[in-house]
């Protein structure tokens, strides 16, 4: 199967080129986001009855990890409200063509930060506090507000969407996993970009803004850093930008050689396994340790968490790589072959989230009817009782996700191994052991 260009359809193309449909979605999302902050701060103290907790960590998370990322890649980033206020202030405009004078400081992000290490750190920070974050409404409200203000602050200092590109804890893993999605934004003809004068897709023009994600579309080969903001579709004077349907995981055929991305794969894989054990397992002591932030038990938990992610998982992976001969350096093999962990990690998160979401989805009904805990009953469901959903299909669905992820990873390992002239077998065995562990944790 090759690519199918969706933007050949005049309806899709016009809908994407016009700013109004996206703006309408943005405004709905921004209102929802601010409402989630407010309900986190002033709503029910009980997490499972608070709109903020229920809509962010159950509804949004389910949509993100089960639908948006696997099928639309960075589709969420295309409608995410977090960068909007900062971007509007930075541009001094909401819809109008850009003013050539830069607003605010408009600095370039220092080179040492132009990678995803800060996103790795920001994700890990949230992950270490996740038991509190996922269950305590005012903490969720504060974190959501902090992300909004951080995005505004960074937009005031740096050019483009510095927060999305370099700091957002969610954007890092969405970017990593977006490589598996069957959708992409790419140029149609490279030669057109080579001869294009002024590169308006990157620098902006009277038709629209320069790429907010600091990406030159002419050089795009992977989804990782394209936020699907659609500006280049609007600014390209040659109609050379396309949105394509493509096979799943097409980007992974050419593995990355970046260590920040390699460690992101380990962070996500390890976090899914740790969450499966701590949050969904029957071991109360782990839950106590994860929840009692600042206690000695939590410090041990944090130490073990970081040791698994930065020591045990990459350590065994490296040991496996050392078992085979290759002319490629170990560092390059490590970075390239960790590409195989991307589909595995995504499917680990799908399997984990299925359990978490199906068990707790019924809270959505009550929170929807009384989002601020003011005694409202907007849809007659305020007193809906908790009831887990579809528990009979949970285990088969998780098996399908995990074994499917293993097959997907094994195939990816074969391709990546071919690129670095190494054997894929140690990586396949590694993925198999990780899958068995995850099966044991979840089933």
């Amino acid at each position, binding site marked *: 199967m090759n690519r199918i260009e969706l933007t050949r359809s005049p309806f899709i193309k016009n809908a994407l080129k016009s700013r109004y449909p996206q703006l309408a979605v943005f405004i709905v999302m921004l209102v929802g986001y601010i409402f989630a902050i407010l309900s986190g701060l002033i709503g029910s103290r009980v997490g*499972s009855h608070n709109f903020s907790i229920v809509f962010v960590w159950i509804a949004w998370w389910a949509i993100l990890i089960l639908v948006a990322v696997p099928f639309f890649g960075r589709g969420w980033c295309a409608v995410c409200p977090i960068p909007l206020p900062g971007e509007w202030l930075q541009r001094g405009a909401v819809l109008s063509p850009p003013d050539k004078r830069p607003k605010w400081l408009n600095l370039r992000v220092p080179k040492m930060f132009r990678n995803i290490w800060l996103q790795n750190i920001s994700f890990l920070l949230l992950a270490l506090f996740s038991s509190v974050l996922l269950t305590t409404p005012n903490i969720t409200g504060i974190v959501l507000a902090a992300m909004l203000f951080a995005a505004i602050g960074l937009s005031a200092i740096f050019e483009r969407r510095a927060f999305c590109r370099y700091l957002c804890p969610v954007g890092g893993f969405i970017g990593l996993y977006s490589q598996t999605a069957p959708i992409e934004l790419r140029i149609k003809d490279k030669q057109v970009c080579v001869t294009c004068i002024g590169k308006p897709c990157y620098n902006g023009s009277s038709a629209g803004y320069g790429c907010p994600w600091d990406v030159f579309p002419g050089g795009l080969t992977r989804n990782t850093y394209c936020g699907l903001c659609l500006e280049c579709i609007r600014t390209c004077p040659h109609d050379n930008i396309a949105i394509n349907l493509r096979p799943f995981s097409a980007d992974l055929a050419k593995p990355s050689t970046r260590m920040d991305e390699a460690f992101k794969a380990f962070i996500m894989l390890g976090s899914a396994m740790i969450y499966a054990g701590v949050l969904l397992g029957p071991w109360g002591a782990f839950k106590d340790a994860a*929840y009692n932030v600042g206690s000695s038990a939590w410090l041990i938990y944090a130490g073990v968490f970081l040791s698994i992610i930065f020591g045990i998982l990459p350590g065994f992976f490296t040991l496996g790589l050392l078992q085979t001969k290759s002319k490629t350096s170990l560092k390059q093999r490590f970075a390239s072959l960790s590409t195989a962990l991307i589909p595995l990690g995504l499917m680990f998160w799908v399997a984990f989230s299925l359990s978490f979401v199906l068990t707790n989805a019924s809270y959505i009904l009550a929170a929807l009817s009384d989002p601020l805990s003011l005694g409202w009953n907007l849809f007659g469901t305020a007193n809906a009782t908790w009831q887990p959903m579809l528990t009979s299909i949970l285990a088969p669905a998780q098996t399908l996700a995990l074994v499917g992820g293993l097959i997907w990873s094994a195939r990816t390992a074969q391709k990546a191994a071919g690129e670095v002239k190494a054997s894929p077998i140690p990586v396949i065995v590694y993925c198999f052991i990780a899958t068995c562990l995850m099966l044991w944790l979840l089933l």
Partner: protein
Amino acid sequence: MNPRFFLLLFVMAGLVVAFAPLPVLAVTPQERTFRIDARQYAYSPSELKVNAGDTVNIQLVSTDVVHGLYVDGYDVSIEADPGQSATLTFVADKPGSFRFRCNVTCGAMHPFMIGKLTVGTNSWLYRSIALASIAVIAFFPRGKKDERTVA
């Protein structure tokens, strides 16, 4: 040999592993009684094992706030007030592994107050691991070929 033949072979093996009925050891059903202490946010003991067909009596004792116990798959539940106990009785006639969880909002970590009931053998886990093994074996011949190319 034809790769399609191998693929068909592995798919068939996978279907057998996933759906073939397993022999069940005939065990005389018994009455099993467990006392479970519930506190924020853990059960003790948190893992129960019974044989298929056993009658399970669970005496739930809450040691701090109101707690509940709902068994996934069996759709049965009880609630216990602080310092009080409540008893749940059901016949464990469905084999497999089931989570039991608190069904009364008991605090922040309430959604994660979880225990595990295993009825008979957790055959789904073993089937899943067998499926994963078949999936991996299916990739090995090609992997070896790649290794030879490198060497």
